[in-house]
């Protein structure tokens, strides 16, 4: 391929990255804008960061969102890891097609459908068995587990499909008990996928607006709901500052995750 031909996709790639990052970069820059008019530069200032940190409604909503994300990511990993194992290792068990289909659907299902259907389920359950008496944190966690667990299953499945089964078979041949093999070989090798699945679930849950809006109840306002109701009224310098803080937090988490994964690499030979 000539240099000019190879250059064409490369230029497009550069433009693609500019498209992906320019809006985020501008958002960050304007978060340090002194002016209340978000898009008119009025000098450098960190006052909006101070206002965000002093805002108790934001703090409450952030804490609620973090708790929900941590809980649903944990449950999603507990359920999704065995699901990934089943898909990668159990061969053709009966019901596999239905199982795989049920796990694939949430990846593309429009959020309004998931949200409405889960709410109607919760309302129906309340009518018939009296639970859940109140919607809020618990119902949001259940809803989030349902749409994040498939992501864990897929990440775990991909990891298991990618590594050498001979390690486990060698251990079994040498007389290790199956559970010991699971504990000392399979799980450590799967660990990076489990960590990645947890982080992915956490992020998806922390980010979710639509599904949580359907299944929440009075008193449970997550951070995306708070941001949405504010953004609907227009731009706000506080949201710029809050968004920048969230971006920094996510980037830090990703760097840490990438670092731990690369440290684990020798294990996955």
């Amino acid at each position, binding site marked *: 391929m000539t240099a000019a031909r190879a250059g064409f996709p490369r230029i497009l790639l550069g433009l693609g990255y500019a498209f992906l990052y320019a809006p985020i970069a501008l958002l960050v820059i*304007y978060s340090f804008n002194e002016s209340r008019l978000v898009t008119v530069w009025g000098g450098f200032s960190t006052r909006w960061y101070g206002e965000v940190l002093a805002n108790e409604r934001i703090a409450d909503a952030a804490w609620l969102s973090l708790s929900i994300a941590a809980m649903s990511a944990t449950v999603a990993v507990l359920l999704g890891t065995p699901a990934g194992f089943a898909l990668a290792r159990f061969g053709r068990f009966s019901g596999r097609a239905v199982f795989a289909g049920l796990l694939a659907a949430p990846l593309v299902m429009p959020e309004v459908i998931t949200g409405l259907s889960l709410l109607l389920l919760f309302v129906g359950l309340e009518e018939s068995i009296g639970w859940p008496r109140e919607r809020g944190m618990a119902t949001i966690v259940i809803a989030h587990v349902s749409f994040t667990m498939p992501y864990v299953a897929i990440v775990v499945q991909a990891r298991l499909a990618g590594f050498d089964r001979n390690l486990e078979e060698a251990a079994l041949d040498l007389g290790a008990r199956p559970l010991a093999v699971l504990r000392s070989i399979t799980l450590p090798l799967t660990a990076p996928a489990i960590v990645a699945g947890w982080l992915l679930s956490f992020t998806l849950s922390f980010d979710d607006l639509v599904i949580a809006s359907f299944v929440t109840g009075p008193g449970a306002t997550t951070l995306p709901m708070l941001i949405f109701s504010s953004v609907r009224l227009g731009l706000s310098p506080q949201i710029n500052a809050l968004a920048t803080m969230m971006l920094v937090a996510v980037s830090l988490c990703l760097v840490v995750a990438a670092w731990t994964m690369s440290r684990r690499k020798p294990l996955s030979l």
Partner: protein
Amino acid sequence: MSGRHRTLAIAAPFAWMLAFSLAPLAIVLKISFSEATAERPPYAPLFEMGADGGIAFQPSISAYLLLLSDGLYFDAFLGSLRVAAVSTFVCLLIGLPMAYAIARSSPQRRNLLVMLVMLPFWTSFLIRVYAWMALLKPTGILNNALVWLGIVDEPLPLMNNDFAVHLGIVYSYLPFMVLPIYAALEKMDWTLVEAAADLGCRPSRTFFTVTMPLCWQGMAAGSLLVFIPAAGEFVIPDLLGGPDTLMVGRVLWTEFFINRDWPAAAALTIAMLSVLLLPILAFQHMGVEADRP
């Protein structure tokens, strides 16, 4: 692993998905055949215990008749499918060359480039849409720059229209297009491309006759990952769209939260599912086997 453990490993997630993914859809179907009422919850029971102890089954198709009687719902469906199709096509136009360029770059740089595509996906969806609001508003960053540079005399109408909705969807869903195509290209046997070149095939022809047929699965997976959620999108049309932007996700939201007509919202959900059933089944069919983010 023993049989008991295997059964448990399947049964726990299976039961969860049946209870919280499949059962809710059955309930939506049930409520779509209910009558809307002003009670709490705002729908009439479908089954009622009669005085003689029997159970009366009282289905109503009023919610579906409502959807048929008002052209608004039909237009919303058409609008959603059109916006989703156009956005998917634009994503493909941008995503395919990006994925191609990543796959052809040196192996050391590839991981970084893939990570750079994934990073926006890890940051808040809502915040990325908000970032575009700041850019596109009549008093936004883009318009201010254009006016200041003297390129336009008055702000361009960039926001609250269908253009902004397409832009927002392409921006938000682009990573879902790039990653599956990249995954397909990465697994591809590049010696075939070299062979075609050695035999005198022009690069553009090689691309269309060798590369594209080999990565069509990635393109199909990417297109479905963009098209299906985009067709049901609520946040983007709500924040970037105008009052005349009719998309079914937004209509469903209004029907449920503003009009409090639960049977109509349920019937809309069923109609949406039926329209999207084919693409969803296609995705399920190819889905679990292909690698995704």
